[in-house]
């Protein structure tokens, strides 16, 4: 009797299964379409930018007239632009280093120490990320004026570092929270000093968060305008330079700069993937 029942049961299950797989195909097509649309939404503008950087005509109109590397050649001889690019690199590198030097210990303090006002400290550290860049820029400008400091790339670096600190602190803090306390206890138990524990045990385990937030800080700093606008002196950064030339109209030269920045970003992304890649099996 049980056998009969089983046979009866199997038939409807199979039928249901087949119907579901047909639905699955439709659903998969729909999902594929949606994903393509999202990707187009995200990357079509960039594709257009790169395409027009090779356009031999001066006008931004379809179809493209011909292929040329002229705009890139022009770039290479534009001293103002190259100087701005170097400035941007310098600012992004220094502000990233500064945020990491302040941010990693701050995250450690937030996670490992308990002190009065810790909750408030955490909120205050994270606040600047929610503040509009304009507010950060104006308030720091006011402060530097009061202190009688001259505006320069150094003031820009300090401005960027304050705005980006929250990025590093949140990422590193989140990673530390997932790191079992027993690792550090075991290290101390095995005779390691505080510094040894940090460099041999803690840092290797939060390394991906440090590198990731560092790269994010770097790119955010590299294309930052509002804070830079208020805090820079005579020196220009790349986004500032692009923005100022835009007032004279959109040139194919700008497209070429844009394309180069896209390329640099892609290199950074690949680099970060390579750096952050775990050994097979991943971490515990």
């Amino acid at each position, binding site marked *: 009797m049980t056998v009969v029942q089983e046979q009866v049961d199997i038939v409807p299950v199979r039928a249901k299964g087949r119907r579901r797989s047909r639905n699955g195909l439709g659903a998969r097509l729909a999902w594929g379409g949606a994903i393509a649309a999202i990707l187009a939404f995200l990357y079509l503008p960039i594709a257009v930018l790169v395409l027009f950087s090779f356009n031999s005509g001066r006008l931004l109109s379809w179809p493209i007239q011909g292929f040329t590397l002229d705009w890139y050649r022009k770039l290479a001889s534009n001293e103002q632009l190259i100087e701005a690019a170097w400035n941007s690199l310098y600012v992004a590198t220094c502000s990233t280093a500064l945020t990491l030097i302040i941010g990693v210990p701050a995250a450690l303090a937030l996670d490992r120490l308990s002190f009065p006002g810790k909750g408030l400290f955490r909120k205050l550290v994270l606040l600047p990320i929610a503040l509009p860049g304009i507010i950060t820029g104006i308030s720091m400008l006011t402060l530097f004026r009061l202190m009688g400091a001259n505006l320069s790339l150094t003031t820009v670096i300090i401005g960027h570092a304050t705005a980006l600190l929250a990025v590093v602190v949140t990422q590193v803090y989140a990673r530390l929270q997932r790191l*079992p306390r*027993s*690792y550090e*206890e*075991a*290290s*101390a*138990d*095995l*005779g*390691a*000093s505080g510094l*040894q524990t940090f460099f*041999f*045990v803690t840092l*290797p*385990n939060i390394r991906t968060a440090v590198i990731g937030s560092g790269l994010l800080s770097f790119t955010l700093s590299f294309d930052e305008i509002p804070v830079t606008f208020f805090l820079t002196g005579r020196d220009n950064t790349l986004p500032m330079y692009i923005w100022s030339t835009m007032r004279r109209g959109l040139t194919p030269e700008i497209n070429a700069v844009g394309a180069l920045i896209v390329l640099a970003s892609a290199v950074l992304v690949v680099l970060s993937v390579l750096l952050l890649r775990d*050994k097979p*099996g*991943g*971490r*515990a």
Partner: protein
Amino acid sequence: MIELTGLTKRFGEVVGVDCVDLRVEEGAFVTLLGPSGCGKSTLLRMIGGFEEPTEGTISIDGRDVTDLPPNRRPVNMVFQDYALFPHMSVGRNVAYGLKVSGMARSEAAAEARKALDMVGLADRAEAMPHQLSGGQRQRVALARAIVRHPKVLLLDEPLSALDANLREQMQVELRRLHRLVGLTFIMVTHDQSEALAMSDRIVVMRDGRVVQQAAPSELYDKPADAYVAGFVGTTSFFEGEMTRTGLRAFGQTIRAPKDLAPHGRPARFGYRPEKVELRQGHVADGLTGHVDELLYRGDAVRVFVNVGDGRLAVDLQVTDRAATDGLPRPDEAVTIVIPPARLMAFGPAADKAA
């Protein structure tokens, strides 16, 4: 030798460990046993240096280590989650404690290999921790802790993460390792059978205090109070009163040592269910009642017997004969015969601590 004197840990208002005095002889395997929240882990962590005592002192071989940080104590710990460093190979994990104290790389690697050899994992030195099974990780944690030749090895619930089969195997391994290295082991567990199986001495804790410390067999046969009797092994409790003729309970009188408990006052008594006899029908000098229910356990059957207004348990070994002769049936009249030496007394009847 480890000596704890008046060791106390308060977390705000809560008392975690309450004025514990304890001496652990060199080379002993001592277990801190108790339910969760009894303070046994806090006590262990204070010995390791991870918690600062509120009061009291800890000394190891006559040296006061109360104020020393963990990295300067001659003590190593096996953590409950093993805490193997996930970014280091097994070999480097074990060599870590030697490396940070300045030993040359090749020498540290050789020592690590020796320690791994002791736990039977010499061939896995190159593996990463995540490639090991739970039992292997446990052994690596052991090797890492003994490689520095500490005076004391602390084990925080070392077997709780393993499944039942592996646990017994590791119990044997731990005993063997203890014999091999001759270190003092202090283990924390909430598992009474584990404590009985492995320790030279068991320290039973409750609410931050030491209730009893004794060798396993002594603890089992002469529990200090009803709490220990109920926590370590199984005890069948009943209330009665000592009279001149014996122990009177449920309106029946059985033979008992004269000095078992003060005469003429109701008190709590008990026995181990496997140390008594169950006879059919009414037998003189026993507690007669009716079988209530049987729980079959493969190697034994626990028989619950209603005696007067109480319910007592008797464990019967299941041998071939018992299985064929038939076990007692529900409602059958039976008598529990308790050898006088197996009776345990636990103070006034009002004490319902267990």
